[in-house]
């Protein structure tokens, strides 16, 4: 069981790690795309010379994609976050913040992209501005101050260099887009995967929990029969029940007394509540008293265990009947 749990945990960690990598690539890709759309060297509303900044169709398309993608992402996120789940205050604040950001971002990002893009200047720009020239600014200043005579050989070399740069830039953009698409697919798969362990108890998981609890009851019975010391036998039996409760989701908190744990287990639907209370009382006596404990205590613990086992069997058979009807 432990190996299965380890393997499952490893798979879960692996998928979480892949999702993180995909998310990181998406973020980096988005930032890079933004950099390509922006126009360095000019003001916020100035017309720049970014490789993708010139096409209004592309900007409008990206805005639409951003809107749809943001809405889809938010929907997936909300489906993954259980609103009824108990969280500590930091987690709850984080979840609230992410929800609000995911609500605002799908609207705000396309709006900003469209508002900040100067569609009117595009046509004008296309008419007057040449293709981007990647030149050293100092060289450009020198050109302004003192124009050189036209040198055909140098012009040819510069044109060749510039063409090579454009090809490399195009390949880089294509690779980046490919990486972003792959990352997006990974992220989409991660978000659309059904969260199997977090699902509420189906008949399968119920059976599994009952099996674990039954094993714990068996181990407690063995402890009762093996241990010569009645006190230690009762304590061992209670420990087994506590472990089984932890495995079924009712873990003991550090500040819990035995009664606190029992009350939470009862709220969680623990069968044979009277027997569990009896076993808890016996444990308290075994753990915190020093007066002698004898076989009568052991017999009472055994009876309580038997009752718990019967309750488990009854619940299991009831679940099986319902499953059969279903």
């Amino acid at each position, binding site marked *: 069981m432990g190996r299965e749990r380890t393997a499952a945990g490893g798979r879960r960690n692996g998928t979480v790690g892949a999702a993180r990598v995909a998310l990181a690539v998406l973020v980096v890709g988005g930032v890079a795309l933004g950099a390509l759309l922006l126009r360095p060297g000019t003001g916020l509303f100035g017309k720049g010379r970014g490789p993708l900044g010139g096409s209004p169709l592309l900007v409008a398309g990206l805005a639409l994609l951003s809107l749809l993608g943001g809405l889809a992402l938010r929907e997936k996120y909300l489906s993954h976050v259980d609103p009824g789940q108990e969280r500590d205050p930091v987690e709850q604040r984080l979840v609230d913040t992410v929800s609000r950001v995911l609500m605002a971002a799908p609207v705000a990002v396309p709006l900003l992209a469209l508002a900040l893009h100067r569609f009117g200047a595009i046509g004008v720009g296309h008419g007057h501005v040449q293709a981007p020239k990647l030149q050293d600014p100092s060289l450009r200043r020198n050109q302004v101050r003192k124009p050189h005579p036209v040198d055909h050989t140098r012009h040819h070399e510069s044109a060749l260099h510039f063409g090579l740069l454009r090809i490399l830039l195009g390949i880089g953009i294509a690779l980046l887009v490919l990486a972003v698409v792959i990352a997006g697919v990974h992220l989409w798969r991660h978000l659309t995967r059904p969260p199997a362990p977090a699902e509420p108890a189906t008949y399968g998981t119920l059976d599994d929990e009952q099996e674990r609890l039954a094993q714990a009851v068996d181990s407690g019975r063995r402890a009762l029969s093996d241990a010569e*010391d*009645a*006190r*230690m036998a009762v*304590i061992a039996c*209670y*420990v087994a029940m*506590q472990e089984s409760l932890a495995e079924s989701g009712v873990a*003991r908190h*550090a*500040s*819990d*007394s*035995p*009664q606190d744990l029992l009350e939470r287990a009862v709220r969680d639907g623990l069968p044979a509540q009277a027997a569990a209370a009896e076993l808890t009382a016996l*444990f*308290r*006596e075994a*753990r*915190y*008293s*020093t*007066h*002698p*404990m*004898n076989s009568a205590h052991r017999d009472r613990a055994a009876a309580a265990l038997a009752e718990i086992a019967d309750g488990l069997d009854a619940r299991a058979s009831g679940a099986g009947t319902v499953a059969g009807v279903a």
Partner: protein
Amino acid sequence: MTSPQPTPDHDTLTPRQAGERAAAVLDEIRTAVVGKAEPLALVMLGILAGGHVLIEDLPGLGKTLLARSFATTLGLDFRRIQFTPDLLPSDVTGAPFYDQRTADMVFRPGPVFTHLLLADEINRTPPKTQAALLEAMAEAQVSIDGSTRPLPEPFVVVATANPVEYEGTYTLPEAQLDRFLLRVRMGYLTAAQETGMLRARLDRAAPEAVLRTLSGPGEVLAMRAAVESVEVDDDLLEYVVALVGATREHPHIQVGASPRGGLALVQLARARAVLDLRDYVTPEDVKSVAVPALAHRVTLKPELWVRQIDGDDVIREIVQSVPAPQTLPRTPVAS
């Protein structure tokens, strides 16, 4: 209200016997004080643990009735002091008077010389008079004119205080608050309980219920001795120390609980065990008395007054955060 009955002397009681008699006393008192199970139990714990009880709540919630009911049912000598702003310390402890016939100074005992003293509205008297109770509460004796006079045993102070009124009141100093073993809040009754109380008043056709006397000073002392025989595991002592230590490090608390707070917590937990007919203390016992035993011993930071956070809230939070003893004992205990 009183119908005295002779009570046999009780030299020794086991914790179970003491718990059974305490339960009988509580059952009797419940016929007069309706719907206050937990406050009644807490006052009983204070008496069993050998301490003094501060009942803090609004007027008209049955504080005085509760104290008088305990005195009657336990068969204790009962005196009451209504604390007022002009009350003098000698009005509490007593004072020497000149006897003209014998030409001697004769000590006339004050109301403090009793078994159960009800200090009604203790925060209405100046600190000087409040302090007159300090020695009596801490040492069970009174020193007047250089001579020390012991108080009768058992000696229990049940003080009441109104926490809402500020006009003409004097807040109890921390040193005096620390001398109360526990603070009890009565609280309002539920609608059903209040209806039951009114119905009981109509049925008995008298202002107050008549209670039977089920015990006496000797038996109360025997019950206290039984509490002393209740055992406490080392892990639980460490738990108590951790709880008290947490009050000194909590960010909302300016002054934490004193070591006397730890002693009070242990004694009250032992008394709780007796009331549950056990001779050993469990973590539940400690947790159940942590708020009454510690909340009045801590001084909160002033800004918390605005946020309406009181000592009870902070101690509750501490109880929910301090680790309780582990399931397995560190040292195995043989049967």
